[in-house]
């Protein structure tokens, strides 16, 4: 029964979202208050129905109802209870249901927090979100129904993919989806503004907190994914320029550009059309990402099984969304008033650099990701684009971005003098030079990239700290420090930390793949790894060989590392569980390859990864900055007023 009720709930949700897409829109057109009010109610009902479907699917997992095909494929009787909760989003159908649940949640949040907005506008925004839901629910019901039955039911299920039986996997997809789906809100605001034909600075103020929250969660989701890949895939990499990673990175790049262009539009009214376009692009790229992941057109470590109908459906959806919103944009945007002008040296021009560079990076990633598809479609052979393409271009394009960033923070709107700006930069510049010199001295083989990277990081961090200091010392209008500025400082400082990580982690890392028998020692990067042998171990649904390595440095014991090689019983899949000793300065990382010969010898991978934690630490700073920016009082005030009104 559970599955059937779930299906009915989803169908009802589809009807409700159709209603939400039509009635409030008609109400807004005819200024009919009652019809517009239904949007908020619709958001509630829609959320409750999708939540019901989600809870029912979860209970099918908990109760081990293997007559539901999705449960039978992604769970079995030995699966620990906590993984039965997360198995819900362990494969295609369920992760789409999670996606829809999050979309319903965002829609409800918009309905709840936007009561102070003009009724017509609010109704239009919710109607657009209703249409987004219609598309996704159709997709779920038509191609990816999680409630399908299988008859006769199997005695036991297959297993949840062992890669996903991991704590990191519990939070990575929901966070990522929060970001992905969150961009539907700025998208809906943009489309609503185009439909109503008015983009005011007030409009940007309404949109900004939503963009900040979505961006913050996408940042966190990407960082979690990278961290998970690092310890779970067992080969010490943390970013592979894999098509699926690129698919999630592109909305992030455009989202970052959007945040900055919104700042300009709110302050001076410039970049208005560009802001609209970015809001459309961020959500379109989220959909493109879904298409790339779900259609199976790309070879990727993330690729789920392919299904052409799913790919076609999303492609059609993508065409409707992108085509429709761009058409609307081309009809309406030219009518909107242009913003005010600005001088060559001003905060606007520096933020224009930011936007251009981010857009170019995004175009570069898009080209590298889609090029193999184009070549294949033209029948010119099957190719792939190697990671060096992305790595080189990303590094090159970071240069203008990092150089311009502190200038943009210090520059005034409208017009500034280069001389004034540069005198303010003397301390960050000194910090950059010193940090670069120290790096060149410290690295055994100093290259241009790590030295420039660390110098750039110091430039960012010093400038990020110099800005609040200047503001706190300032008098009169200059004094004071808003939450918004604290958020900006945090995020920019985080970018600096991140930059240290990406500059140093790869060039200074050491790795070795060796054969080790019990008692063997191996020295790497000043650390001695001694292999004590392996022992057998039983987990709830796997058996494992656990190796033991004593790590010492200069004769002093550092740590003991116990990597595992697991064999999951049900499907006899083999999984590597790396053992990591984390640290701000360096990670020690050991993973087991395979047993060799009869003397207990194993193929072993040893890694030393300096500064790799900084990559994720920096991302956490950016996440915190994004959330803080959204909680600025200026935004809250409007909701308080709204509640009182």
């Amino acid at each position, binding site marked *: 029964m559970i599955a059937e009720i779930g299906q009915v709930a989803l169908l009802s949700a589809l009807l409700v979202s159709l209603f939400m897409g039509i009635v409030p829109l008609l109400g807004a057109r005819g200024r009919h208050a009652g019809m517009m009010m239904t949007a908020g109610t619709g958001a509630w009902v829609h959320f409750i129905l999708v939540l019901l479907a989600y809870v029912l699917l979860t209970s099918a997992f908990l109760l081990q109802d293997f007559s539901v095909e999705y449960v039978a494929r992604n769970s079995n009787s030995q699966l620990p209870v906590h993984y039965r909760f997360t198995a819900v989003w362990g494969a295609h159908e369920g992760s789409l249901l999670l996606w829809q649940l999050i979309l319903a949640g965002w829609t409800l949040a918009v309905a709840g927090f936007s009561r102070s907005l003009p009724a017509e506008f609010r109704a239009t925004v919710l109607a657009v979100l209703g249409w987004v839901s219609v598309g996704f629910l159709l997709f779920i019901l038509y191609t990816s129904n999680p409630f399908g039955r299988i008859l006769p039911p199997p005695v036991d299920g297959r297993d949840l993919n062992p890669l996903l039986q991991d704590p990191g996997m519990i939070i990575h997809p929901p966070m990522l989806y929060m970001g992905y789906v969150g961009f539907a809100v700025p998208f809906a605001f943009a489309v609503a503004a185009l439909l109503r034909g008015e983009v005011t600075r007030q409009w940007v103020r309404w949109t900004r907190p939503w963009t900040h929250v979505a961006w913050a969660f996408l940042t966190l989701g990407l960082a979690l994914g990278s961290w998970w890949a690092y310890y779970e895939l067992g080969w010490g990499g943390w970013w592979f320029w894999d098509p699926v990673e690129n698919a999630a990175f592109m909305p992030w790049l455009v989202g970052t550009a959007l945040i900055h262009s919104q700042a300009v539009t709110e302050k001076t009214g410039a970049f208005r059309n560009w802001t609209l376009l970015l809001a459309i692009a961020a959500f379109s790229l989220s959909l493109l990402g879904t298409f790339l992941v779900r259609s199976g057109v790309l070879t990727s470590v993330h690729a*789920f099984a*392919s299904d052409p109908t799913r790919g076609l459906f999303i492609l059609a959806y993508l065409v409707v969304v992108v085509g429709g919103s761009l058409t609307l944009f081309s009809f309406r945007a030219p009518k909107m008033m242009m913003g005010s002008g600005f001088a060559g040296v001003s905060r606007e021009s520096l933020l224009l650099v930011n936007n251009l560079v981010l857009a170019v990076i995004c175009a570069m990633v898009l080209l590298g990701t889609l090029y193999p598809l184009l070549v294949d479609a033209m029948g010119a052979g099957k190719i792939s684009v190697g990671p060096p393409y992305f790595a080189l271009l990303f590094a090159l394009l970071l240069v203008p971005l990092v150089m311009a960033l502190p200038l943009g923070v210090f520059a005034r709107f409208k017009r500034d003098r280069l001389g004034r700006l540069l005198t303010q930069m003397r301390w960050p510049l000194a910090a950059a030079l010193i940090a670069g010199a120290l790096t060149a001295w410290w690295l055994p083989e100093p290259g241009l990239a790590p030295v420039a990277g660390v110098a750039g990081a110091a430039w960012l961090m010093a400038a990020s700290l110099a800005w609040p200091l200047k503001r706190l010392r300032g008098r009169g209008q200059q004094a004071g420090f808003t939450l918004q500025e604290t958020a900006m400082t945090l995020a920019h400082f985080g970018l600096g930390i991140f930059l240290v990580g990406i500059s140093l982690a790869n060039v200074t890392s050491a790795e070795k793949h060796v054969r080790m028998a019990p008692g063997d020692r191996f020295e790497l990067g000043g650390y001695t790894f001694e292999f004590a042998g392996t022992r057998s171990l039983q987990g709830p649904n796997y058996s494992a060989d656990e190796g033991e390595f004593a790590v010492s440095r200069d004769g002093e014991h550092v740590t003991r590392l116990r990597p595992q090689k697991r064999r999951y019983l049900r499907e006899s*899949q083999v999984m590597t569980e790396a053992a990591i000793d984390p640290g701000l300065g360096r990670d020690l990382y050991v993973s087991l390859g395979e047993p060799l010969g009869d003397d207990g010898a194993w193929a072993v991978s040893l890694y030393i990864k300096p500064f790799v934690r900084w990559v994720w630490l920096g991302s956490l700073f950016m996440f915190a900055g994004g959330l803080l920016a959204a909680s600025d009082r200026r935004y809250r005030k409007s909701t308080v007023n709204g509640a009182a009104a």
Partner: protein
Amino acid sequence: MHPVRKRRLIGVIVIVVGVGIAAAITMWSLSQNMLYFITPSDVQAQELPPGRAFRLGGLVEDGSVSRADDGLQVTFTITDGAAMVPVRFDGILPDLFREGQGVITRGALGADGVFTATEVLAKHDENYMPPEVAEALREAGHPMGGTADEGDGSD
């Protein structure tokens, strides 16, 4: 020229030149990092210059995997049912690497006709066949090629 227009013109020129340079570097870098996917039949049919990097994919031939006694060097054969290419790899194989399974390797052919792989990829889902490999097998008439939606995990 009016100073405002002049300033705008300069701005536009700077942007166009900047984006143009970025585009040129992008295209150059793309051409440098393009890796072709080549099947064992292709390797046999064409004279590939030794040392040129590409990706080789197919099934690991049953009974072909052998390891050196000391160290980690491993050799195996990749087949698409119609032709075979011997592969040498020095390192740790992925968990899902096994005989009869689809793999993609990246590397270059040596003068001796042995493909030296720098990277071996097997997919994280046991029932998942890389689309390139599936198509290569289909073209070579191998039964594991199946249909296009092979391996959606619902057996």
